[in-house]
């Protein structure tokens, strides 16, 4: 039933009905945002990336042939967009998001208010440190780590997605794990 609804909405969207596409967006924006956030660990970046993903999918909508579910299809687009994002970030390492686009306090309240949903200050700090540590991984290490531990992909699947050999995937994954262990040692060991 859910898939039928999606197919109907996709068909209408393929005919240019942007409202139908809007319904699909509203249905999946949260899941796609979470995926984008796992790669960016930055809400503004995740929001923009999420917009980029849906824009890409709208442009490619006529190529969707209902062989898979709409979510599977858009997830693939999202994953590629996230991988592109980490590559772009690698080539603009010295430019922070805040430099490129001033943070919109209306959409993303800055400072401590952003962390009010977390259990406590320690947890908030740990979260920040983990995000910082992940940001310090190389683009490849980050892609592999997120795909393995956030998206739950097998090593073989990661190799296919990133067009790498399984041995390379292992090397990037274990390097990422060792690096994170080193960076997070003060927080984890305590």
């Amino acid at each position, binding site marked *: 039933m859910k898939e039928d609804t999606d197919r109907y909405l996709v068909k209408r969207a393929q005919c240019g009905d*942007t409202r139908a596409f809007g319904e699909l967006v509203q249905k999946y924006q949260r899941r796609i*945002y979470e995926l984008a956030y796992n790669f960016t660990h930055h809400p503004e970046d995740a929001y923009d990336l999420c917009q980029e993903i849906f824009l890409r999918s709208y442009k490619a909508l006529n190529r969707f042939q209902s062989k898979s579910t709409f979510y599977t299809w858009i997830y693939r687009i999202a994953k590629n967009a996230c991988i592109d994002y980490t590559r772009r970030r690698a080539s603009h390492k010295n430019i922070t998001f805040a430099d490129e686009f001033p943070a919109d306090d209306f959409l993303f*309240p800055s400072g401590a208010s952003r962390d009010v949903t977390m259990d406590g200050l320690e947890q908030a700090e740990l979260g920040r440190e983990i995000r910082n540590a992940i940001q310090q991984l190389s683009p490849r290490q980050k892609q592999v780590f997120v795909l393995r*531990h956030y998206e739950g992909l097998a090593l073989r699947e990661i190799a296919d997605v990133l067009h790498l050999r399984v041995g390379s995937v292992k090397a990037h994954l*274990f390097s990422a794990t*060792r690096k994170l*262990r080193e960076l997070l040692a003060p927080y*984890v060991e305590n």
Partner: protein
Amino acid sequence: MKCKSVENLIPEYIEGTLAPKRSNQLKLHIEDCPQCQKELQTFEETIHHASSVPVEYPTPEAWKAFWPTLRVRISQNQGFEEDRLPLWVRMHGWKIAGVACVLTLLLSFWGLSNGRLFKTSTDNPPFDVLISSSFMAEIPGDQLQEQLHYELQHLDVPSIWDSRSSLVDEIQIPNSEAATDLVDQWYNVITSEIDVESVGNEVFTDAIPSTTDRIDLIALD
């Protein structure tokens, strides 16, 4: 096995990608080594924490603005969107075109088969009937009546309308059998169009003078 080697292999041990023999060696070492046990625990916790960073969601206002913002971007990317055909045409265009084609074909067949769809005519009328019909269609009823009146005025037999046989007798055509057939056909045609009896009563009574002219029915054609 030394602790440094074990420490290097712990990520692979956790992932389960070590060869069974090597994995077993590592396991035996860790069981007897508190330092490596702690190292293993630290790695496991690192992975657990690093893979469970809570997601920071946008505010409800940001979620509400998500689609309108995206829609503007889509419109900017697709400037022609507003000029496109109506949605119902785009949705059902092929179906409508298909039905129109089928209807056109059916109407064509209908027209070609003289209004009898997919049926060919089996009872062709005789050729002479067709000629007679055509002839009658070309001459209006009042003209025919006038012509008939004129012809009858020049006949020398007053009782010509008594029966069709007398009409046959009056026409001198070498082949009497052919003449009979021909007059039969004309008679049928004329009587189907004109009330011969009334014509005879009203016009014939005094109108026919004694004349020797002969009617040449062929001249009517």
